[in-house]
């Protein structure tokens, strides 16, 4: 073989190999979905999925697997996390993108990256040390509630801090896609910086902000260890934010040890994982498509 042939051969083979690896990994997504679906088959073949989701009876020994308490617990914690996390992240992202001088920015961004690198278990330990007493001894008595501190609100606060970095990073990208010309036009008409932010930046980025929120929502929905440590894990329908809740990921993580001894228990837990997978998959796909479109759009 001549040198040129060897070079072309290398080129062709690497292209084929890389393409197949690429396709293989795309296939993994399908594999995860199908794998979890098959593993949970024993339970959704026997009981209707609507019944499983809307029943609150969870008695594994009697074969009753109602997810309602877990799903409502997950939704409550996630909702609280976004309610707390979104306004703070939004204002902070506006500050970093529009107001902060370069030097402040170059200090803040690495700090935010550091925050995103802290492992979930450390957030959990922090939650137990700081937020649990805060909620149990300070916040709950102030609102006339009795709480152990291991509550939905505690989970919401810890998750809010965990989603700060994700939200800020995406919001900064979204703000960057707003053309400078629009902001300049607003400023030159006499609007001050805050009015420009309010009427141009935020209005223009509305779809991106919504997409970022959905992403943060799905991140909070799937977070496991930290939530498991601070939410109290009592499977009843929560009546207030100071009640203990038992989110879906915590259910999966807490019961893996003894699930093999009870029939259908493993199928029920795999169904929980499948529900999480589908919900989060849809949220992510939707918001990423919105964000990609925003980034690609060209303004004159």
């Amino acid at each position, binding site marked *: 073989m001549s040198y040129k042939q060897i*070079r072309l051969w*290398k*080129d062709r083979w*690497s292209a084929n190999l*890389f*393409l197949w*690896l*690429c396709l293989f*990994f*795309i296939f*993994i*997504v399908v594999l*995860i979905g199908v*794998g979890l679906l098959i*593993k949970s088959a024993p339970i959704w073949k026997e009981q209707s999925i609507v019944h499983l989701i809307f029943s609150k009876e969870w008695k594994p020994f009697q074969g009753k697997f109602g997810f309602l308490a877990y799903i409502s617990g997950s939704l409550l914690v996630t909702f609280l996390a976004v309610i707390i996390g979104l*306004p*703070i*992240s*939004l*204002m*902070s992202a*506006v*500050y970093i993108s529009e*107001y902060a001088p370069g030097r402040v920015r170059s200090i803040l961004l690495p*700090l*935010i990256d550091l*925050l995103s*690198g*802290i*492992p979930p*278990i*450390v957030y959990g*330990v*922090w939650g137990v*040390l700081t937020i649990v007493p805060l909620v149990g001894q300070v916040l709950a008595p102030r609102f006339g509630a009795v709480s152990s501190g291991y509550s939905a609100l505690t989970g919401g606060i810890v998750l809010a*801090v965990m989603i*700060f970095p994700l939200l800020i990073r995406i919001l900064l990208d979204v703000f960057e896609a707003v053309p400078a010309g629009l902001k300049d036009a607003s400023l030159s008409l006499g609007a*001050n*910086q*805050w*009015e420009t932010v*309010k009427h141009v930046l935020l209005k223009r980025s509305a779809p991106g902000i919504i997409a970022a929120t959905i*992403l943060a929502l799905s991140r909070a929905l*799937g977070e*496991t*260890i930290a939530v498991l*440590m601070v939410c109290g894990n009592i499977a009843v329908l929560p009546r207030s934010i100071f009640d203990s809740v038992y989110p879906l*990921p915590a259910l*999966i*993580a807490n019961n*893996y040890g003894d699930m093999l001894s009870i029939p259908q228990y493993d199928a029920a837990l*795999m169904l929980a*994982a499948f529900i*999480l997978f589908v919900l989060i*998959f849809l*949220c*992510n*796909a939707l918001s*990423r498509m919105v964000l*990609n479109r925003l980034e690609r759009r060209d303004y004159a």
Partner: protein
Amino acid sequence: MSHLRIATGAPGTAGPGLGSARQSNRRRRKLEAGMAKGLMLTCTGIITGSLLLILWSIVSKGLPSLSWEMITSIPGGGFYIGKGGGILNAIIGSIYISLGSVALALLVSVPVVLYINAYAQSHSVLVNFTRLVFDVLFGIPSIVYGAFGFTLMVALGLRASLWAGILTVALMVIPILTRAMDEVFKLAPPELSDATYSLGATRWETAKVLLRQSVSGIVTAILLSFGRAIGDAATVLFTAGYTDSIPTSLGQPAATLPLAIFFQLGSPIAEVRNRAYAAAVILTVIVLIISLAGKYFGKRLSRYKV
């Protein structure tokens, strides 16, 4: 057009009586802007404050229980009722799993990133779709990877082991690594590949040039994924098992740092719980070092960039 009309109309309406009204309006606008800025600063303060609060509360609680013995020995007899020993088993186990999974992830990620940046037509359907898939996989929580890894393990007849842990964590790390490297490759100037192609290089040779250009970013991406791999608990909970000894082969179960913290924190004995706090300090320090190293190498290696 309507803006123009208002702008030109404005001087006409400014009678002598309206001056003070306009002044108070201006004051109100100024006040609102000032308050907004104050709010922004407060929010930024809350975020940086929470980082400092986390670090402070972990370190102040864990440091008193941290000892040399904890880092250098494995659990002794009666370790879980508060007697002597350390968590070397978990430190080593975590490092094995993270190293293994990042190495495995590199084998998949580098080719994928090269393919979508150097081989495929840019912005083709396949490229956009691949990026979307990795974005979505990035968002899938580690507990789902854990559950999937567990089913895979059962299907392959593996038991909870170092090997199963590495495989599962690799699945979680691949999207992180791929996205981080893709960001770097996207930044490479298009003139670079134009130049190599015009010199008659093949795509494979161009890919090698791009690799060299992106070295700093790749190192940062590797360290980022290593930090994520070492800190994650939900993936190894099902798959890696837990043991008091240091694993000597891929088939043995392995302890991990996050799980060491998690299990010891659930103990009713105060000394064991204190050790969990100390273990949290160890994990945090490891992650911070990795994170800072990423920044350092990112800067240092980029000296040779075009």
